[in-house]
């Protein structure tokens, strides 16, 4: 524990004792407990109570003084459990007679506090933390707490009930006996204790633990037997909770415990399955599956459990049946027989509604057919069942063929038929169930599920040939006047997904292409911004898919039949909604990516786009669009860099003046932007320029993790690094001379200014990124390890404006340099001002501007110290334990002396 915190801890305990209501806020106690939990975990000796006696005094006092605030009592119970988690701590608490009182339900009940759920939560969580060793288990059993805990399982508070279940599962699983190697009987088991294994290996302790454990198991088993089956309608809650407990236990129980649990629960479980209570279907399925998978893990599945599983898949209520089948598939199908059965169940509603005969002609085998049709006639259950089925279709279609009653293509056909029915066209489903049609027509929920299913089904085997049919339905949806924005969005997603799988455009027809063009043209002008945005995003994704699939360059144009997505996107740059403008910019970047990679000279259209983008960057009131503009140039610059590296011959034409001029403007506008993310992206663009200028140069590494990459000045340099440097030196000998030129170029491009302005930005992510880049810059141009940089390099200067960031940098330079007493004449001027031909002209124009040498600035800014601070994040100071303890003390003091509090009472309202 931090020495400062040690000093404050007694005072904090005192504040908590005095009144919990003076706490800074409702999170304080939880944060305090988090901190103490961390310390306890690190304290292997368990000596925390000894080292900090105030903690024990605090616990004893609160436990006895029931008048404390309930939240403080709850915290104390949790703390008490935490301290008792080690045997030493437990012993100390017991010696102080704290435990009996703290975990006595009667005690809190008599004080009228048990009604408060936070006390019950504290009680459970305290016990949960403590029950990590055999002594705690003995205490738990002797105090007869199992029954009380079981009672809390059906508590009125969801949180208490869930915590009680977790706690019961913890006891039975944590202390569960393990079979000795070669032993199969429970009599020869030994006891496992994860923390204090050494202390309970002795036969006496083993026996104690065994007895205690058996006692808990006996009470719990009896409870399981009695409460699994709901006696009346009102007892569903208890059965539900008991099933959840059993599910938790069976998921992790090992053989002796698992066998015992199964033996205990077998009959009641069968009874519950037979009773067919809909509310219990899912937890029941969880239990059966957990039992099944744990029993199959050791070879032959337990016949009884297998029978239960089969019964679950033959339940009489169709809705329950669907739920059970879906649960079986989602938890990984246990065996082919049951999986095939589940598949048939899940495909049945789709088969019935669409009449697609997914289950073959032998439909007599599906005895649920009639009840299912009946159920489908009710709108609510029809929608709910069909949605569950649809959600599972992609997974079903990927299952081994022998488990499927039909090829995947038939499932796709059925989903397409359903989509048609939903939009009012049942002509493709003559064998379907017309009485059910009215339930799904115009149902947004079914449409969304079906479109999602269709998207998922695109990767199923043997379905690529269905592209035309799929596109036809999707275009119909995109065209439908009543389609809501989410349905349209999902339709676009499905189109992109299917096209990304089936990139061969011969699968499509001219008519389809034309239809797609028409609908996109229509939707890009939709009244709703959500629809316009999805359309614009679609155009970008389509281009992205086709580029990544390496198909012909103009495929997207071909697909869109010359509708010219770029011109549609250009239009969208004027959209009144900033989200749409931003999407249009990103989509343009994706659309033009191919031509950039080819290094083609920019067309007039591209030039126009660039001017419009720069206009957006300088004038748009919303950050989203401005961020997208900077990212557009990042994408352009990167694609150009990658194409240069791949093919040097194209580098000349790819280094278009349009791009380079724009980049300078972007840097200057972006660094002065009001949005932090625009500034971060601008720094990313600056980093690309640095990469291009310095890559291959000594000391320069690509990537932004500069802090880790930088070798410590006194670090041992590995052989590998030396070799690399030697090699670089040889290769870069000729390059040293042009380092100054490169540096000058960067300054002229505005890269250095961007980095400096970023460094003093009020948004930490911006200044952190800038600081990292400046260190990288410094290590390349004038590393600290070299006494003086090359003269030509040292001479390169830049201009610091006399306002804003320039002023801040000047101040920093003045301070750090005067502190270090490096240069005597700097203190007076605040910066090392000198005459330089390069920036003299500008300085004269700017009035207050000053010229400084780049290397001097880089070496004098105290970048490493600044990085250390920035890397700590804004939370470092405010949310440190010390800050928390100080806040508690201050709030306590303010509460006890209300006069010291400024103004009126601070009421927690909203934010």
């Amino acid at each position: 524990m931090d020495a400062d915190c040690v000093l404050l801890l007694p005072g904090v305990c005192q504040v908590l004792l005095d009144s919990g209501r003076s706490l800074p806020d409702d999170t304080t106690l939880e944060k305090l407990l988090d901190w103490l939990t961390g310390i306890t975990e690190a304290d292997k000796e368990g000596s925390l109570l000894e080292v900090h006696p105030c903690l024990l005094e605090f616990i004893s006092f609160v436990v006895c003084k029931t008048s404390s605030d309930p939240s403080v009592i709850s915290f104390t119970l949790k703390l008490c459990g935490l301290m008792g988690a080690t045997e030493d701590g437990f012993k100390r608490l017991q010696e102080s007679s704290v435990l009996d009182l703290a975990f006595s339900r009667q005690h809190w009940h008599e004080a009228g506090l048990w009604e408060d759920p936070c006390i019950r939560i504290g009680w459970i969580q305290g016990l949960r933390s403590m029950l990590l060793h055999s002594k705690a288990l003995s205490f738990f059993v002797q105090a007869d707490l199992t029954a009380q805990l079981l009672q809390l399982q059906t508590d009125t508070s969801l949180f208490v009930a869930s915590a009680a279940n977790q706690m019961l599962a913890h006891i039975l699983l944590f202390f569960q006996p393990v079979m000795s190697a070669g032993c199969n009987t429970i009599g020869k088991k030994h006891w496992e204790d994860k923390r204090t294994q050494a202390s309970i290996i002795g036969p006496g302790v083993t026996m104690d633990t065994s007895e205690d454990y058996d006692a808990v198991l006996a009470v719990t088993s009896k409870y399981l037997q009695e409460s699994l089956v709901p006696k009346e309608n009102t007892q569903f809650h208890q059965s539900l909770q008991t099933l959840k407990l059993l599910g938790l236990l069976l998921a992790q129980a090992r053989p002796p415990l698992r066998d015992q649990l199964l033996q205990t629960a077998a009959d009641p479980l069968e009874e519950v399955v037979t009773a067919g209570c809909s509310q219990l279907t899912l937890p029941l399925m969880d239990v059966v599956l957990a039992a099944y998978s744990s029993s199959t893990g050791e070879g032959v599945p337990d016949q009884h459990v297998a029978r239960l599983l089969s019964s679950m898949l033959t339940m009489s209520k169709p809705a329950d049946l669907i739920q059970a089948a879906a649960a079986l598939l989602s938890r990984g199908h246990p065996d082919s027989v049951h999986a095939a059965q589940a598949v048939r169940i899940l495909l049945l509603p789709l088969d019935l509604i669409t009449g697609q005969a997914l289950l073959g002609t032998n439909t007599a085998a599906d005895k649920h057919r009639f009840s299912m049709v009946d159920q489908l006639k009710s709108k609510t259950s029809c929608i709910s069942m069909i949605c569950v089925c649809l959600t599972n279709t992609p997974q079903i279609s990927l299952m081994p063929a022998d488990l499927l009653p039909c090829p995947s293509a038939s499932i796709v056909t059925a989903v397409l038929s359903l989509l048609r029915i939903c939009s009012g066209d049942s002509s493709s489903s003559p064998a379907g169930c017309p009485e059910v049609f009215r339930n799904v027509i115009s149902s947004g929920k079914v449409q969304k599920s079906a479109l999602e299913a269709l998207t998922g089904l695109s990767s199923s085997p043997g379905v690529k040939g269905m592209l035309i049919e799929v596109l036809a339905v999707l275009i119909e949806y995109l065209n439908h006047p009543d389609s809501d924005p989410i349905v349209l969005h999902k339709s676009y997603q499905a189109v992109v997904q299917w096209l990304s799988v089936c990139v061969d455009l011969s699968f499509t027809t001219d008519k389809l292409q034309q239809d797609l063009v028409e609908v996109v043209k229509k939707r890009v002008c939709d009244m709703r911004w959500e629809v316009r945005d999805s359309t614009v995003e679609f155009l970008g994704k389509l281009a992205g898919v086709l580029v990544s699939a390496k198909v012909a360059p103009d495929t997207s144009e071909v697909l869109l039949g010359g509708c010219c997505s770029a011109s549609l996107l250009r239009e969208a740059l004027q959209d009144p909604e900033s989200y749409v403008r931003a999407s249009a910019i990103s989509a343009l970047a994706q659309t033009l990516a191919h031509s950039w990679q080819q290094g083609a000279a920019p067309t007039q259209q591209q030039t126009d786009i660039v001017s419009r983008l720069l206009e957006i960057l300088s004038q748009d009131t919303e950050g989203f669009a401005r961020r997208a503009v900077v990212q557009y140039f990042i994408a352009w610059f990167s694609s150009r860099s990658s194409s240069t590296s791949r093919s040097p011959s194209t580098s000349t034409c790819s280094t278009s003046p349009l791009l380079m001029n724009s980049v300078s403007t972007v840097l200057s506008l972006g660094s002065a932007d009001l949005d932090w993310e625009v500034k971060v992206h601008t720094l990313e663009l600056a980093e690309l320029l640095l990469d291009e200028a310095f890559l291959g140069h000594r000391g320069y590494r690509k990537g932004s993790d500069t802090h880790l990459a930088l070798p410590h000045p006194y670090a041992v340099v590995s052989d590998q690094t030396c070799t690399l440097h030697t090699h670089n030196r040889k290769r870069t000998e000729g390059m040293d001379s042009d380092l100054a030129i490169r540096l000058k170029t960067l300054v002229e491009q505005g890269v250095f200014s961007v980095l400096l302005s970023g460094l003093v930005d009020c948004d930490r992510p911006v200044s952190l990124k800038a600081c990292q880049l400046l260190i990288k810059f410094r290590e390349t141009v004038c590393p600290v390890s070299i006494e003086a940089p090359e003269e030509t390099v040292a001479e390169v200067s830049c201009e610091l404006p006399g306002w804003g960031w320039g002023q801040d940098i000047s101040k920093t330079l003045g301070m750090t340099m005067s502190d270090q007493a490096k240069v005597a004449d700097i203190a007076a001027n605040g910066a090392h001002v000198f005459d330089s031909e390069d920036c003299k002209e500008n300085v004269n124009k700017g009035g207050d501007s000053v010229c400084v040498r780049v290397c001097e600035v880089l070496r004098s800014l105290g970048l490493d110290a600044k990085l250390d601070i920035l890397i700590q994040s804004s939370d470092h100071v405010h949310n440190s334990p010390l800050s928390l303890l100080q806040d508690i003390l201050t709030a306590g003091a303010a509460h006890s002396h209300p006069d010291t509090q400024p103004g009126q009472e601070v009421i927690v309202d909203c934010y």
Partner: protein
Amino acid sequence: MPEIKVTPLGAGQDVGRSCILVSIGGKNIMLDCGMHMGYNDDRRFPDFSYITQNGRLTDFLDCLIISHFHLDHCGALPYMSEMVGYDGPIYMTHPTKAICPILLEDFRKITVDKKGETNFFTSQMIKDCMKKVIPLNLHQTVQVDDELEIKAYYAGHVLGAAMVHIKVGSESVVYTGDYNMTPDRHLGAAWIDKCRPDILISESTYATTIRDSKRCRERDFLKKVHESIERGGKVLIPVFALGRAQELCILLETFWERMNLKAPIYFSTGLTEKANHYYKLFITWTNQKIRKTFVQRNMFEFKHIKAFDRSYADNPGPMVVFATPGMLHAGQSLQIFKKWAGNEKNMVIMPGYCVQGTIGHKILNGQRKLEMEGRATLDVKLQVEYMSFSAHADAKGIMQLIRMAEPRNMVLVHGEAVKMEFLKGKIEQEFSIDCYMPANGETVTVTTNPSVPVDISLNLLKREMALGGPLPDPKKPRTMHGTLIMKENSLKLVSSEQALKELGLNEHQLRFTCRVQLQDPHSDPDTLHRIYTHLKSVLKGYTIQHLPDGTVMVESIVIKVSSSAEDPNTKVLLLSWSYQVKLSSFLMILSSPGISPV
């Protein structure tokens, strides 16, 4: 009996992370999906695992309704829809939909600023989430599905804040979100129909407070700012982008105009334009005065308030700066605070609540030495003031809303337990209704009286009127007799004759019989005669006949006498009556002196 269940996952006896689950008529509705800014981990979001069995929220919830754009009400929305995977309908008003992303983006920035932040949503997620939102208009009933309908009402509080009336069949719940019952400088007061919901779920931030008049607070605020400016100091007002910032701007603008003050007022990071844009766009959501004067002069086009540049902070002389964020935990407000903290002439006014750990919280608690990064210490010499301008209903306002809506039950959320307890007592006393204040995770269950709509036949109504009763009045319910029949899935109350006719049934008469034993030594006819005489004497207004077939008839009740085979003195009276007759009164007459039953 049908039940409505209300379970807060957040805002149950606390503020932050508002998230309330309502189960009504088989539908599950989530009200708000907020975050708790006091936490840095998953605890900041509501824990949805408690309410879903299979992890699919979409299967469980029928819809989600967001009351307004504050993060404690909508901060977990992208988490829920894009990370947890809720894909069902989300409702909020138009202004909330437009402004929500700004606040969410602001918060995203803060999380990026923190180290090791994972599991947080991206900009794209915020947008994708917003695209799923279905906008609500005030007073327009929206049919979520065949059974569930919702209707939004004006809540004041912030631009676009709404209360919502949720109805399934005859059961209904109103959720207030945060609301304000008194109009302020730019927003109106909350209002709702007398909708008599089964439950009114109300915020209770100011449960025990009767707030002093707004004018006093405003005067106090202006006085403090003015004094500071007069002595050449600088005033920092940390605010969140939208909300009370606009209220304070209007206040200062008017004051500057009136007093002809020259000191500059700045608003940071271009938010004035943005806010202006939204207030213009949603002018109908502002108060009457602003709406009326909008044509001549837009209140949000400030003459004295200019955009701030970071270099201005170093300018000499007095100034007022509104800077974000509001809790002094990062960004521009913190940067300016650091610059100005050392001068006792300067002042910082905190207009809202700050969570633990933030500089705002520390200085409000009176800390004057703040440890900053790199173990540097900042001496706080400037004046620190707290002036709450939050637009919540106070205790009086809450009572006023109850009077307006006339709920059958109350549930208090979004407040402190101790204060809620006090208000609960007041509500129960004044309105004689049950008031609950569930903790997070606790479920309030309210049983409702199902109201089943029934058609009444015109003939029956006419007959009832013919009987001379008062004319039907919806405010005065009265009992009406008839036969309830169900035909073609609808219920009808008709006369019994019409019921028989409509259902094609024959009428049957049901008679009840019983035996009464008497000790009487006379012959059977004598005994019967004695009974006849006795009845004649006591039942004056009734038709009593001694019939020749050896029976006595009192109205429709038939009495016959026979002797017991074993004992001729024991007479057996056979009584037979139809269902209309009240036998008890008759038996009482029989048991009266003169004839004593065995």
